[in-house]
């Protein structure tokens, strides 16, 4: 029996990421977003088409994010909960709030700078891609610290490396962001599917009824 309470807490938080479903959903969403962004970069510079493209991009982000959340819940109900049990997480508050706000504030600042740079193209081409990769690498690094899962450290290093490669490749801002999003999606899908396979093998469905 485990006696280290910090370990118990970490294991309980890790449970959400144990099956890899979240990664696959987020990866799929990123990949779709990447393809859309890359396609958007190819649209000729007519104002109406550009505006339509931006609206479409926003719609893809919002709709896919909503569907991804629902898909994660459904897949977890079908695959995870019958195997390893049901858990519902509560929103962190209290002592963690200032730290969370500083992280979220920092990330929101970076995201805003990135969007501003993309709209005005004032950062030059390379900064949009570098900013996005840094933002994603930081997000995954934070997730790794929170969950103590090694694969998230690996993902954060991979994302930073991919960001540097895409930045140095000389692609234009939007094309570069599209390629980076596709790479992020593929990496997450690969990591998620490996984790999911291991999870399913390790946890067969229990036929017996619960107590």
């Amino acid at each position, binding site marked *: *029996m*485990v*006696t*280290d*309470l*910090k370990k*118990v*807490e970490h*294991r*309980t*938080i890790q*449970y959400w990421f144990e099956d890899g479903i979240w990664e696959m959903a987020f990866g799929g969403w990123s990949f779709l977003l990447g393809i859309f962004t890359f396609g958007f970069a190819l649209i000729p510079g007519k104002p109406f088409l550009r505006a339509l493209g931006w609206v479409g991009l926003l719609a893809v982000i919002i709709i896919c994010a909503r569907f991804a959340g629902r898909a994660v819940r459904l897949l977890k109900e079908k695959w995870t*909960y019958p195997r*390893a*049990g*049901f*858990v*519902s*997480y*509560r929103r962190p508050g209290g002592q963690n709030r200032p730290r969370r706000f500083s992280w979220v504030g920092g990330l929101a600042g970076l995201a805003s700078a990135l969007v501003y740079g993309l709209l005005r193209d004032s950062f030059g081409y390379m900064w949009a891609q570098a900013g996005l990769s840094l933002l994603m690498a930081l997000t995954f690094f934070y997730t790794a610290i929170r969950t103590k899962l090694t694969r998230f450290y690996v993902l954060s290093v991979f994302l930073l490396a991919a960001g540097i490669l895409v930045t140095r490749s000389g692609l234009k801002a939007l094309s570069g962001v599209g390629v980076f999003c596709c790479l992020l999606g593929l990496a997450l899908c690969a990591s998620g599917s490996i984790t999911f396979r291991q999870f399913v093998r390790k946890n067969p469905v*229990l036929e017996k*009824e*619960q*107590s």
Partner: protein
Amino acid sequence: MSAEDYNLLSIDRLVHEPARLIIMTMLNVVDSADFLFLQRETGLTKGNLSAHLTKLEEAGYVAIEKTYKGKIPLTVCRLTEEGRKAYKHYRTQWHDLMSLKQGRRGSGSAGCVNKSKRENREFS
């Protein structure tokens, strides 16, 4: 009897028992968890886990809801507000007690301090 002994006596024994402490630690992190999850994570037998949960429910620390998911019974447990307070209080008390113990041992040999630090790390 020393101040340290008084602190030890005032510790909530219902929470202090290792299996119940682990159950409460898990439930403190989440909103709710089912029986299967708790059993898998604690490594307790069904009967043992059920007995501990009943004790915590009787004390008002845990709320247990029995529902059905299709044809399979689902037992969902959550920590009540009283349970969260009791758990928080226990952790604070334990931390204080260990700090006091460390302080006392600090005046003694370094080996004792290291041992005490180890104990504190395991439980805090």
